[in-house]
């Protein structure tokens, strides 16, 4: 339902864009008839595209340069704010700056100055932006309200004040507020060289601030308490970071508009997070995404005059975000699905091999106490029926068959009508796995005082992720079991699992993989006992 309406919405939304593109192209084709030298060369659309992309126009150069540096700076600062879980700070700040813009305009006009001079407006915006930050911090630290409420309160009340002031400005005789509203929706296309220069200056300040204080800010983002304990001036660093956000936000207001500067602060950083775990690489990635998104968006709007550049930049950035979310090599959706599937397969194989081993073992007479079990090589001849294996665990037949097929492909198992037997390699692997499982079981019984009846399940949960070092340690701890590397005898009776066993009792691989396929869960499996 949602998918359908969404698809329709998207399809319908883009229709006019395509119509417009077609119109533009058509227009150029029409133009070409009147300019023979162009018509003689290439398709005029492409020549125009080339002209924009190579930035032969002074205006395009200014705009692209401005948005690119802004995108880079916002991407850098954004990655700090994202990790500090303050992604929407820019949103609140941008809104909080509107009364400042209005007040600056009013005061400047009343005093006989130029109300629309950019430095005056930016100064006003900065003042109320900083007041807004102070308000957020006060509400968060002095009351029982949380960050989100603090942001919401400051954002809406300040913006309300801004609106009220704009309402008054509209009645002023000296100035009309028309240009001021550009701050809300952006006026990228009409960016002047002076604006671009201002953006460049701020970007240089912000970028060098980020690079100089990289270590300190990194610590602030990851472990504020530790940074404080190390003697870093945490509050000062926090204020410095916020001041940088204020700078980027205020300068960005006129480049891409009030609402869309937030996008530059949030989206590239959030996208970069999918590609890397290292902070430095994330920052570079985020800055690169910010610059690329701004350039492509800016160029797109230069090629198609019907598309507002601020919005195009955001849309290009969000396209980057969705690609990153899906394909990101670190935390992307696809890579995590693959990892989970791999883990599930590994667990299925380990379960299969151990089930085979235990079945074979059951068929053998028990070795008398104190003697080594019979030679492993004899086990190889014994076949185990698939039906038997089915009864070992509560897995579906399909899943078991697939696990067997994969094991056959890897020469661990051979199958012959309805039953299968282990190969040499399979036997070694099965013995190793069973040994690992039982070592862990014994450890749980000896040291964790888990009841014998429960130990199989707990061991099941953990055996797949035992690192070799842990096994070494287990062996050291349990050396009273003898120094043989053979499989220790199962500490509990091996019994047929009845199918009536409640499914809740038996964790499935999916369930388990949910637990371990988290970010760092795989290294430290601490599964709660159900």
């Amino acid at each position, binding site marked *: 339902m*949602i998918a359908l*309406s*969404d698809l*329709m*919405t998207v399809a319908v*939304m883009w*229709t*006019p864009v395509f119509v*417009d593109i077609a119109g533009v192209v058509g227009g150029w084709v029409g133009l070409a008839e009147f300019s023979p030298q162009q018509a003689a060369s290439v398709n005029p659309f492409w020549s125009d595209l080339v002209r924009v992309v190579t930035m032969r126009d002074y205006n395009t150069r200014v705009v692209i340069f401005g948005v690119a540096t802004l995108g880079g700076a916002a991407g850098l600062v954004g990655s700090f704010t*994202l990790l500090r*879980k*303050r*992604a*929407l700070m820019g*949103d609140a700040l941008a809104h909080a700056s509107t009364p400042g813009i209005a007040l600056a305009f009013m005061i400047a006009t009343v005093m006989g100055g130029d109300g629309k001079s950019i430095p005056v407006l930016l100064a006003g915006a900065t003042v109320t932006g900083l007041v807004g930050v102070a308000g957020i911090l006060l509400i968060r630290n*002095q*009351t*029982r*309200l*949380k960050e*989100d*409420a603090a942001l*919401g*309160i400051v954002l*809406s*009340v300040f*913006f*309300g*004040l*801004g*609106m*009220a*002031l*704009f*309402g*008054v400005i509209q*009645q002023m005789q000296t100035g009309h507020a028309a240009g001021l*509203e550009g701050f*809300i929706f952006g006026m990228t296309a009409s960016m002047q060289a002076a604006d671009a220069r201002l953006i460049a200056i701020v970007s240089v300040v912000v970028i060098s601030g980020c690079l100089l204080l990289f270590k300190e800010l990194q610590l602030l983002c990851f472990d504020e308490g530790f940074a404080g304990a190390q003697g870093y001036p945490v509050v000062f660093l926090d204020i410095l970071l916020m001041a940088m956000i204020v700078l980027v936000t205020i300068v960005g207001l006129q480049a891409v508009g009030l*609402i*869309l500067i*937030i*996008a530059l*602060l*949030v*989206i590239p*950083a*959030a996208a970069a*997070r999918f590609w890397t775990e290292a902070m430095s690489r994330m920052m570079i990635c985020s800055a690169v995404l910010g610059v690329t998104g701004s350039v492509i968006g800016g160029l797109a709007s230069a090629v198609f005059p*019907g598309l*507002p550049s*601020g*919005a*195009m930049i*955001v*849309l290009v950035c*969000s396209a980057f*975000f969705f690609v990153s*979310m899906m394909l990101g090599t670190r*935390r992307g959706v696809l890579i995590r699905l693959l990892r989970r599937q791999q883990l599930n397969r590994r667990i299925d194989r380990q379960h299969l091999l151990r089930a085979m081993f235990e079945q074979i073992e059951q068929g053998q007479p028990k070795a008398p106490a104190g003697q080594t079990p019979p030679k492993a090589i004899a086990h190889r001849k014994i076949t185990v029926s698939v039906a038997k294996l089915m009864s070992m665990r509560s897995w579906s037949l399909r899943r078991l068959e697939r696990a067997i097929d994969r094991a056959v492909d890897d020469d661990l198992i051979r199958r012959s009508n309805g039953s299968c037997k282990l190969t040499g390699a399979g036997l070694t692997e099965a013995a190793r796995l069973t040994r690992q499982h039982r070592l862990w079981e014994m450890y749980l019984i000896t040291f964790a005082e888990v009841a014998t009846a429960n130990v199989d399940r707990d061991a099941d949960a953990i055996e797949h992720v035992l690192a070799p070092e842990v096994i070494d340690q287990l062996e050291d701890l349990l050396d009273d079991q003898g120094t043989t590397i053979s499989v220790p005898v199962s500490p509990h009776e091996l019994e047929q699992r009845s199918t009536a066993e409640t499914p809740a009792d038996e964790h499935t691989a999916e369930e388990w993989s949910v637990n371990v396929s988290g970010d760092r869960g795989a290294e430290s499996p601490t599964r709660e006992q159900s």
Partner: protein
Amino acid sequence: MINGNALSLLAIQWSWSLDGWIVLVGALAAVSSALLGNFLVLRRMSMLGDAITHAVLPGIAAAFFITQSRDSLTMFLGAVVVGILTAFFTEWIRTTGNVDEGASMGVVFTSLFALGLVLLVQTADNVDLDPYCVLYGAIELTPLDTVNVFGHLVPRAAMILGAVTIINIVFVIAFFKELRLTSFDPALATTMGYSAKWMHYVLMVLVSVTAVASFESVGSILVVAMFVVPPAAAYMLTDRMGIMILISAIVAACSSMLGHVMAISVPTWFGFGSTTTAGMIAVATGIFFVFAATFSPTHGVLVKAVRRQVLSLTILCDDIVAYLFRAEEIDHRTPTPGEVQENLLTTGTALRLAIRMLRRSGELQSGTTSLELTKTGRRRGQRLVRSHRLWEQYLVDRAGRGTDRIHDQAERFEHFTDRELRERLSKQTDAPKEDPHGRPIPDEHE
């Protein structure tokens, strides 16, 4: 009842047929938003209202493209669908992509807003959809757009918002228990058989409907203010959820009144005409919030500051009395205020205040320049020193601390130790006569 005379003090023109409706429309929008806002604030999703109101732009535009009409019902539906999608996408990115809530919200609503802007620019010639209008609203014009209800002309906005308010009131009352449980403890609610997830989505649908219905007349920012600020103010005043919802509704309704009065009066003081009512209503909620946050008797900043001051003054009094007691005990002398100030690391003002308090309660002898304990004062000092030394003994005996590291701990505990606890300490440490530093532990009373 307020009439023209009362308001003439504010030098404004007030007409019930116009301003009355404006206030009513504002109040309905405010109350319906504030009702749901309580749950958003408690669930720490305050910014969702902001995200939804920004994101509905493409919904309105898309609805226009699909139907090619400016029928308000279609646009309403389009906006609501996209509003719900915003909540849905945010949740999807947060869970599937492992992205922090704020960031996923930021990604979703900025993208949708940008999409909406592109669409609007594309159709600017065909439809007078004005993005400014979406942000600011046009509450002043609502009384002009009326429908006929049983022979009376009622503004359309009042009808729509009235219906939404009633729906929200019914929803909050009917599902009060479930909402409370799912807001405070989703895990418990789920084990008790209430689906926290369903509650979440129903709430999201209602938030979208309310936001869209309100911002047509009052603008998106006012909606954000109403979702967050009145509930936040109410949260400063009470711990009970029912009362919180009630207070938030009252604050919301009052801000509508105050906001409109401010909108038509404040600019006139500076020689201008009236200004945007929606903006001023947001400012009015802000004023209410600042008052609640500052002066709340339970959670207010002021009360908490006063409590902290009183506590620190009491502790200072304790310290002075204990210091004087020790000085008397060791070399029978009476220290000067300067010496006390230096040793207790306090400011002169605080010390003077504490001394005045002690003199008034009869623990310091009055009329002298030196600091001399009275009998009551001596008894208080004795109790404190006894607590301190018993704690030191206890820390060495039972907690195994080194003798050099116990003083600060004992210093902290002594202020909060009553007679009963002293008896227990004494018993636990086998009623010692001397503390670990070899000083005598005074008896409870001589």
